[in-house]
């Protein structure tokens, strides 16, 4: 079986080592015998995005994000087609913000986003920085997520999105409502680096499964040996949550 991954703007949105997510998705699929391709998609290269199973997007510096914001407007219909068709989209940090309705800078300037996610972001003075522990439910099972956030934008959710996780430790979307990340259909957005999937293999597998089920509803990924990832997750959970409370 094939898995087609598109890495959006790897040269521009490469700030917090989020390319790790692409490596992890690719490896985990390959270890299960899937035939994986990874395409790098940036300015000047406009393939049909609905042809991809998974699209991954990271965060960048303000300057680079400005370039991407402009370029994304040209792909609006293209991305919407992909999202509507069930392509899994994982957007981190700056990429997350760009998929929302808008980003309002601290000086009051309003940068339009794609509106794929029903969120909007407002720039704030204080940076929200540090380790994050979140609690996320996947197929009825509760998981602890471990990541790292570093953002000054506060993201507020509209009625069409669901929060991705409840914040156990850290700030999350806005630092106000104890939620972090969102999901809307097959589109996921979050502030978490780490990279996100490194210590949360259950989430990586969930994304791959969702993507494959677009074509074959019966897909069930075989279990890999994730002892290292799971014990690391547990150890950090203990350190970050239990030790301090």
């Amino acid at each position, binding site marked *: 079986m094939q898995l087609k991954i598109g890495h959006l703007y790897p*040269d521009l949105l*490469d*700030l*917090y*080592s*989020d*390319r*790790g997510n692409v*490596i*992890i998705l690719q*490896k985990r699929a390959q270890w299960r015998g899937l035939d994986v391709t990874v395409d790098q998609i940036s300015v000047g290269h406009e393939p049909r995005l609905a042809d991809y199973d998974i699209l991954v997007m990271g965060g960048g*510096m*303000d*300057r*680079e994000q400005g*370039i991407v914001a402009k370029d994304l407007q040209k792909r609006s219909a293209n991305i919407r087609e992909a999202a509507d068709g069930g392509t899994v989209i994982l957007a981190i940090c700056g990429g997350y913000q760009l998929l929302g309705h808008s980003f309002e800078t601290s000086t009051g300037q309003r940068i339009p986003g794609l509106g794929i996610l029903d969120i909007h972001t407002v720039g704030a003075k204080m*940076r929200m*920085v*540090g*380790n994050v522990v979140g609690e996320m439910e996947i197929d009825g099972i509760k998981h602890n997520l471990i990541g*790292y956030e*570093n953002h*000054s934008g506060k993201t507020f959710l509209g009625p069409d999105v669901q929060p991705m996780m409840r914040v156990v430790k850290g700030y999350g979307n806005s630092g106000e409502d104890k939620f972090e990340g969102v999901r809307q259909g097959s589109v996921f957005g979050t502030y978490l*680096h*780490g*990279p996100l999937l*490194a*210590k949360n293999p259950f989430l990586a597998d969930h994304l791959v499964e969702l993507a494959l089920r677009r074509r074959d509803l019966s897909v069930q990924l075989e279990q890999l040996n994730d002892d*290292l*990832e799971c*014990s*690391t997750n547990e*150890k950090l959970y203990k350190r970050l949550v239990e030790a301090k409370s």
Partner: protein
Amino acid sequence: MSSWRFRAAVLAAKSIKRILTLTGRKGTTLPGNIALRICPDLLANYGNLLGERIVFVTGTNGKTTTSNLLVNFLRSDGREVISNSLGANLIAGIATTLIEGVVPRHAHQQAAVLEVDEATIGNVIVPLRPKAVLVTNFFRDQMDRYGELDTVVEMVGSALQKTPSSTTVILNADDPLVTSIAPDDKNIVYFGIESSQFDSEDHAEVRDGKFCRKCGGNLHYTLYHYGQLGFYRCPSCDFARPEPTLAAEHVRLHEEGIAFEVGKVTGFINSPAVYNVYNALAAITASTVFGVQDEVLVSEMSYMKTQLGRMERLYSGAGRELMLTLVKNPTGFNEVLKVVEHERNPVELVIILNDRYADGTDVSWIWDTNIERLQQVADLRRIYCCGTRAEDFAIRLKYADLDQITELVEGDVACVDTALRQLPPGHMLYILSTYTSLYAVRDHLLEQGGSEVAAQNRASVSGSA
């Protein structure tokens, strides 16, 4: 005037320092903090006392090595030099260093080489009025502290705009991020590498500074040294690599280090990492600004020794050869990997990854390293991981298909001991450590009877301490 305040501040700081020392603490920042509170213009007083005999060294990588090389050059030239060699490079650390080091009665004979944090330089440049400010390079690093790289470059840039007209600004010509902040109407001296065995035409490792900071254009390169350092120009405006005033040519591996030519003089540094050539060039350039005598400089350049834990070659107590080096960001890490690849002997690795404040609390950066390259290294038998985030590194190795040779060990010092015990004959051990374990491991190795590798040509550090 506030001279009584100044004296009171210095007195208070010194007695606090004494108490701290008695109770076995280092006290590299608290005395300065207190003194600054008593006398807010403390630094301006030191600026006056030291006249134009202060150098600042700032930038992402190489601050410590550059500062220490420069201190050696100046001391060999017979000068009395104060420095914050313990890396206390925030305002309180700088104040503490000056309080301890400056002797007002003969301050006119003293000079200060100060390593200054990128976020601090803007606050100390006006009161201290340095004779020279040296900027090594900019790479993404510890974004938990500073925010993104552009912000850091901007901070140093606006500090340079504030330099007095008597200051010489010394910049790395090969780093477009550094040259982009060259201040207008100031004295600028550039250093750079003109030709090198390590050059490549591969742009894959340029992660920072791909774009012209003047106009946003995509920079064109004809040559890469490492990271974004190389021969660049902007196709859309006049931004381009300036001609270096002091240039190294024919940079090449030589014995256990790197040799290069500056004009007719041959320099040698006992470390095989090309970034140390830049550190050497920076220190040499600053020495010329300070008028260090030619014969002193020539003799110093013939054998330069890198600093504690910066690609430092050591012997263990049992006589095993090892290399100890600080790693803190992907660019530096990737340069170390290149050295490992070129190593003649088979190698084993210890990687110490901590996430304490001084290390940077975000360890995501390890995913930006080209650790996959280790797959190509023949005879690489073991990679030991330890530190507060050892498991994070082990996961990184797993996704680079190196899990078969990965071993987790609890405790930094214990891990190094284990690795040394199991090191096969003829193998060499490379220890890569984040900041907070570096000196503990080094101290431990020396306590166990280890030693520094002696200079082959001559003793490297002459002059007084």
